[in-house]
């Protein structure tokens, strides 16, 4: 917190960048963590339903769910809507222009859109009251309270926890009349989920093949590229966001994916547990302290490390690729379809699904994977605004990129869950 | 009033090489006069005549007497350490008079004169004195020497 409190953020000077690079090479991190060690995640529920703060180290994010009854879109008349709104302006050292147009803000926004909206994690049909007339509009406001790196993970955890915590009142629709029942009349209803996605972030440096997990702001700013993977609790890939200039081979990405998948599963478990404890607390006493705890720092927070202690020791340390993928292949469901947009210039190894989803991992396959595919995702900015509807437009953009004859490859994957 | 008008040096004179310092001085005077004229309606006599006992110093570094922040220890950067040493020596040099003296000033004077050190200056002085004075002193000295020999020694012996 001390380092961020000045006007300009860390990681912008050359000595810092050089130092972080060389430290990453020696597997040293400024806060003494290992390369694959996460910071403790702490959850804190507010007095209202759907209010959650998540803190990871000095990073702190507040998510607040609100609801409204509105009309559905004509394209999907029987579905409610989910709106995500990110506010990064609370971070004091970003000036107005940076906060609004900064790449960071755009990336975060698109990551959340893809993780929660495009992956259809909420059962939006259950939010329908009357087809083509009335639906629930759920809105999540994500406020960044302090930024010390890895806003992505903190925001996705906060959003997921807030949505899971949220309760809406029951309604009935009789004779063109909506009747909303108060809490006393009928019990409040939780939202229905199809799956529970969270993201895990990695930093890649040119100096070392070993990516750093859960980067601080210093590490993030000094990184050559940042990989964000969203997995749901079934260990299905929801979003992959890889950008920057560091050459990353398939093996590294696979390695990240394996550990991210397990991490995501653990995180969702953790959120569930925290919710249970919160429910118990609420039933015991009417009085809920809410976020006032944040001010005095008293520990009613749910800490990842404390809650998950008794669970099987979470493998957060360095992934042994062979072991991991073996475990992975057993669990990986086949029902996942990956819409892969790959460029003409991309090597076939990436197109080959089998190399992405290794089944019964053997040595030859790994060697195949190690064929380095240099990814220079300079086109990250354009990608950040992508979403399903304007895909056609993106393809046009890609042709331009191909015409430039750069060794660029865009990899964006979205898993559509088949129900 | 022409009598109070200050005589001004012409530009030609001021442009001469040896007049550069004067030129600066004249320019500064002009400047001061102009600024005085500019603020004349805002400044009152009290402000002009007040003799304040306050000096404003906005720098913490000067107030607290902070050292230079560029330091090196145990041979990390020899260049910086050499500069630090030089600074230290300079500082020590200034503070040397405060060291305790083995010989006080009074003692020093006494021994100095006791050793007849000013004799040399005396001999030089003789050279420039007139003949008359010279003789006078010579006789005096002889007398004194004579007296001394006669007077002092027996006394010491007495004691």
């Amino acid at each position: 917190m001390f380092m961020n409190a000045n006007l300009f953020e860390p990681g912008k000077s050359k000595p810092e960048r050089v130092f972080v690079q060389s430290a990453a090479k020696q597997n040293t991190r400024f806060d003494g963590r290992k390369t694959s060690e996460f910071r403790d995640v702490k959850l804190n529920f507010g007095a209202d339903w759907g209010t959650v703060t998540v803190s990871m180290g000095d990073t702190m994010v507040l998510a607040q769910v609100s609801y409204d009854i509105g009309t559905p879109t004509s394209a999907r008349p029987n579905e409610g809507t989910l709106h995500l709104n990110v506010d990064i302006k609370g971070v004091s050292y970003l000036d107005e222009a940076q906060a609004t147009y900064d790449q960071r803000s755009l990336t975060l926004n698109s990551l959340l859109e893809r993780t929660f909206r495009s992956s259809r994690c909420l059962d939006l049909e259950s939010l329908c009251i009357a087809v083509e007339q009335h639906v629930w509009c759920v809105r999540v406001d994500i406020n960044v309270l302090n930024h010390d790196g890895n806003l992505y993970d903190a925001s996705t955890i906060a959003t997921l926890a807030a949505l899971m915590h949220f309760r809406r009142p029951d309604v009935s629709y009789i004779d063109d009349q909506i009747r909303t029942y108060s809490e006393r009349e009928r019990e409040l209803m939780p939202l229905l989920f199809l799956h529970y996605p969270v993201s895990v972030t990695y930093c890649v440096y040119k100096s070392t093949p070993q990516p750093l997990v859960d980067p601080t702001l210093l590490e993030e700013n000094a990184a050559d590229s940042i990989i964000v993977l969203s997995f749901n609790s079934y260990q299905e890939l929801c979003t992959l966001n890889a950008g920057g200039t560091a050459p990353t081979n398939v093996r590294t990405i696979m390695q990240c994916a394996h550990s991210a998948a397990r991490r995501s599963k653990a995180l969702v478990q953790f959120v569930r547990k925290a919710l249970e404890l919160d429910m118990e607390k609420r039933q015991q006493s009417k009085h809920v302290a809410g976020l006032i705890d944040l001010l005095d720092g008293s520990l009613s927070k749910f800490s990842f490390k404390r809650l998950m202690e008794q669970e099987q020791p979470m493998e957060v340390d360095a992934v042994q690729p062979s072991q991991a993928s073996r475990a992975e292949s057993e669990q990986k469901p086949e029902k996942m379809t990956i819409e892969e947009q790959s460029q003409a210039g991309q090597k076939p190894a990436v197109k080959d699904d089998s190399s992405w989803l290794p089944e019964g991992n053997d040595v030859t396959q790994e060697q195949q994977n190690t064929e380095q595919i240099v990814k220079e995702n300079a086109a990250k900015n354009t990608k950040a605004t992508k979403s399903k509807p304007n895909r056609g437009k993106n393809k046009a953009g890609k042709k331009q990129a191909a015409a430039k004859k750069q060794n660029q490859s865009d990899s964006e994957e979205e898993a559509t869950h088949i129900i | 009033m022409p009598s109070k008008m200050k005589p001004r040096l012409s530009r030609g004179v001021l442009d001469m090489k040896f007049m550069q310092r004067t030129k600066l001085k004249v320019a500064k005077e002009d400047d001061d006069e102009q600024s005085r004229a500019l603020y004349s309606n805002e400044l009152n006599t009290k402000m002009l005549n007040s003799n304040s006992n306050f000096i404003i110093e906005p720098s913490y570094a000067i107030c607290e007497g902070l050292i230079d922040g560029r330091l090196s220890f145990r041979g990390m950067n020899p260049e910086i350490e050499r500069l630090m040493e030089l600074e230290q020596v300079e500082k020590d040099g200034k503070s040397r008079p405060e060291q305790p003296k083995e010989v006080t000033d009074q003692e020093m004077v006494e021994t100095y004169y006791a050793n007849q050190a000013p004799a040399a200056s005396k001999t030089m002085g003789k050279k420039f004195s007139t003949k008359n004075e010279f003789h006078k002193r010579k006789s005096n000295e002889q007398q004194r020497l004579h007296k001394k020999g006669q007077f002092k020694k027996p006394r010491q012996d007495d004691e």
Partner: protein
Amino acid sequence: MSSALNIVMPGERITAVEDVAKGKRIILGPGLRRVNDTVVASKAGPLKHREPNTFWVDNYQRRYVPARGDLIIGIIKAKSGDVYRVDIGSADSASISYLAFEAATKKNRPDLNPGDLLYARVLNASPDIEPELVCVNSNGKRGKLGLLQDGFFFKCSLNLGRLLLRENCPALKALTEKLPYEIAVGVNGRIWVKAHSAAETVGLANAILSLEQAGHSEIDKVCDNLGDVLQA
């Protein structure tokens, strides 16, 4: 008075200083302001006094306000015309001329790029114009000023920077016993350190940051533990 902790609040009239001022000339440091013949505090914090005649308020602050003569660390942000723009943590960015370096001429310009760190002196600072820096002393020599290469750089409160720069600071002495290192402390709350290895540098930086919470009085106690921080 210098020993007793005397907290003043902004707007408070400080008669103690006025009394001293009747007898002799005094220097009013930051946080004190003269209003006609009275002395008024403009910052909150303990009132400090240094012999013979200096008074100031030592308030907790993170934002640097440039003052003439300060030695600071700046980050080069851009080149523009004949000057570099330097971020020194103040409201306005500072400028340093190409010619304000040792042996620099119009043709022989220093080779500095955005992101480089400079240890420089504030040449002039006024609320109305942007601060100007120099990297040479009055003899045109570099001295200790100039580019800081390698090492690690971090930010802290202005108070911590000043704490380290007091004469005979126990913290630096305690660290010297543990390992050889090089340090540049800017009074603008920025610190650059360099040790032989990355692990040592990390330990050093963490040790210095652990002093952040220490006051002038507890510093000795904290310094005893610095070795432990270094090991961790």
